[in-house]
């Protein structure tokens, strides 16, 4: 398709609203820029899909994920936004809603709206009743969903039990909105069972929130040094607070495995290091362009007012398709491969350990701690032949117990996040205690993220973000108000997700062209 045709099809697509057209036109324009800043070998890997640049565009002019220090903003106010520091809850919510609209990311909208309970609790006093608080949160939730309609937008609550966290869970369970995505940061030493149980009740009804292993995340980020907190953004990324991630580039482990002679030795000692080296060329070039050429870190008021620090931006080294890579190299069918045998399980762990060691030791300029962070990438809507991260392929999942036990050993390596979604039968709705026990056990055993899809809920998780089943059905004819629904629809088509057990695949932004096919 010529550029002219591509642009005209966007303009004339009746399923897109005005803003969505503008958004896709800009993505298309950016992808037209020709900026080869890496070797031919690296380009070959991109062209053949061994390495995927996540369609971030050829000339990045904003970081992929921005994690502002909203707490600082609330304390200081903002010159740029001409807003004084808020003094009561209404002002604080209003301040944040305005600020969110000025936080860019790969989606053009914020992917992280902060630890909302922690941010708002200082403004909550006994003069505000529970009903009043719920009303204010409800209005805030509607405002976020209707003005920033992108399911990659992510809010955090916990680990402390407090009135705002409770109100948010109550409102979120009631509204069943796709946006914002939500995570409860859970620490058995800090979080009350009451708060966890409220979250579990919500999950059994709406598949939200995620439950994050707070203790593990805090320990990992503290171990890296220069700790100022972390946040969980988009789907499903753990990143330094007051910073973020410049970029995410991911390796298709299946395609990497296909480049190997077939032996474990060759794959681990030759193929992975070679591909990683070229992947790092691409990561470094993108980071450098963002830092040196397009100038976000020089002109953004978020930097000027110190809500973000350019030195706290990492790069994400992502992998996906572990199951298919392992099965390919072992020469076994999915039903008898990863997730089903100890041999496959242990081989997969050696692959993750090898990659983690490379990520830990490879230097990157202009990045936090001069390195990337390792990320289990949850897949995008065009991934037809590969599973997200370290997930066991759809349709051949073993029992939930075996599924959890298979992925747990990988989780500790993925500092920058992992989302393995466990499909759960809807009978769990009558017995949420069962879900709470599984969650607690999994987190105690080292699972970084606990995410489930309960069969037949309207809200369905697509790797990390949500779509509504009913919206996917409508999308084909009418389009959707919510930007990310198109990816859910596409994932449903390409990956047959809704026909299978209870889970979907995921996605993040990409040019319009792929979506029209």
């Amino acid at each position, binding site marked *: 398709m010529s550029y002219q045709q591509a642009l005209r099809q966007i303009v004339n697509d009746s399923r897109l609203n005005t803003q969505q057209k503008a958004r896709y036109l800009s993505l298309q324009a950016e992808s037209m820029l020709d900026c080869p800043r890496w070797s031919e070998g690296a380009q070959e890997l991109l062209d053949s899909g061994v390495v995927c640049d996540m369609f971030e565009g050829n000339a990045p002019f904003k970081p992929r994920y921005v994690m502002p220090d909203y707490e600082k903003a609330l304390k200081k106010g903002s010159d740029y936004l001409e807003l004084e520091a808020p003094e009561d809850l209404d002002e604080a919510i209003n301040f944040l809603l305005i600020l969110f609209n000025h936080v860019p990311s790969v989606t053009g909208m914020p992917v992280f709206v902060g630890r909302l309970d922690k941010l708002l609790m200082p403004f909550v006093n006994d003069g505000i009743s529970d009903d009043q608080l719920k009303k204010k949160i409800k209005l805030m939730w509607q405002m976020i969903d209707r003005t920033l309609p992108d399911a990659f937008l992510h809010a955090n609550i916990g680990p402390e039990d407090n009135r705002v966290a409770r109100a948010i869970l109550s409102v979120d369970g009631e509204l069943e909105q796709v946006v914002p995505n939500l995570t409860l940061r859970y620490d058995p030493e800090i979080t009350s069972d009451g708060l966890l149980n409220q979250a579990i009740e919500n999950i059994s009804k709406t598949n939200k929130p995620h439950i994050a292993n707070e203790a593990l995340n805090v320990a990992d980020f503290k171990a890296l040094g220069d700790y100022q907190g972390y946040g969980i953004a988009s789907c499903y990324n753990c990143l330094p607070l007051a910073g973020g991630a410049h970029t995410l580039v991911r390796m298709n482990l299946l395609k990497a495995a296909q480049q190997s002679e077939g032996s474990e030795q060759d794959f681990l000692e030759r193929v992975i290091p070679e591909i990683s080296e070229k992947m790092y060329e691409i990561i470094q070039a993108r980071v450098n362009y963002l830092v040196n050429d397009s100038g976000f870190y020089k002109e953004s008021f978020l930097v000027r007012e110190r809500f973000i620090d350019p030195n706290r931006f990492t790069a994400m080294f992502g992998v996906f398709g572990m199951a298919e890579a392992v099965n390919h190299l072992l020469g076994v069918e999915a039903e008898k491969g990863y997730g089903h045998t100890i041999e496959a399980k242990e081989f997969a762990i050696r692959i993750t350990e090898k990659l983690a060691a490379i990520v830990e030791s490879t230097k990157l300029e202009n990045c936090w701690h001069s390195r990337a962070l390792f990320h289990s990438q949850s897949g995008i809507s065009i991934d037809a032949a590969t599973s997200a991260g370290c997930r066991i392929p759809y349709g051949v999942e073993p*029992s*939930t*117990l*075996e599924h*959890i*036990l298979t992925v747990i050993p990988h989780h500790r390596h993925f500092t920058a996040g992992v989302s393995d979604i466990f499909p759960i*039968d809807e*009978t*769990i709705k*009558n*017995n949420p*205690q*069962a*879900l*709470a*026990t*599984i969650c607690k*056990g*999994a987190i*105690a*055993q080292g699972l970084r993220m606990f995410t489930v899809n309960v069969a037949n809920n309207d809200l369905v998780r697509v790797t990390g973000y949500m779509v509504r089943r009913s919206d996917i059905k409508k999308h084909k004819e009418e389009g959707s108000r919510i930007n990310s629904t198109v990816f859910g629809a596409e994932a449903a088509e390409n990956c047959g997700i809704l026909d299978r057990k209870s889970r979907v695949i995921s996605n993040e932004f990409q040019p319009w062209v792929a979506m029209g096919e």
Partner: protein
Amino acid sequence: MSFSLGLPWVSNGRTTVSGLISKVIPFSCVDGPGNRFVIFLQGCNFNCKNCHNPQTINFCNHCGDCVEQCPSEALSLNDGKISWNSRQCESCDQCLDICPVNSSPMVEEKTVEELLQQIRVASPFIDGITLSGGEATVQLKFVKAFFTAVKNDSALNHLTCLIDSNGYLPLSAWKSVLPVMDGAMIDLKAMDADLHKWLTGRDNFRVFQTIEYLASVSKLIEVRLLIIPNINDTAEEKMAVKDYLSSLNTNINIKVNAFSNKAVKGEAIDWLSLSEEKKALYLQSINR
């Protein structure tokens, strides 16, 4: 009834007891409170017309009828005994359809220790263990040995040990298992004695005894009612159930399960399934 209690207990002379196990599932949220490891024991002393798992009723008589019909050659007859190769098996369940005695060639004999090993893997993620069936108490010796072993294992004794039962076990036998059992879920198939006998092949006197006894010692977790349209949902039955459950005077959980004509054999195939709406109405009508 065709089956006899000739159970093939295996003992090596020490304390090793094994059970005949038809199935093990590591996670279940429908077999008692929380997440549970469930072991289904083979053999039942009822012969319910509405049985959803008729292959669990009897013990295999090693007739060999299933061997030749197995499409994946997972079954063989050696020295007059059926053996099942689980790796070869493709779980088509054709052998269950063929079996002339409502049994299964896939039942495995497992020792207490073998089962404990499996449970140790699952233990961080579960609230407890449920022994179900078939009718678990038909293998009471195994049940007691197994629960005793769980209670004596410091890594496992936080797990609650429950039995899912038809309630036919005599009181003296319940008393003997009580020290190692945390509770039981009891099926109440019908209030009317004749209807119960027609439905299950046994009368319901002992079932009432069981329910009342377990309630009196606070070990009755749940009473389960499997409701079959036009059979045990009549006005009289409903009234009797309601009165009886009220008389128990405790806060036990009542669970209504809907009969489904899928997976049943014989005349029950022609019975009506209970819809979700009717199930909800039934529950409402017996609400104490």
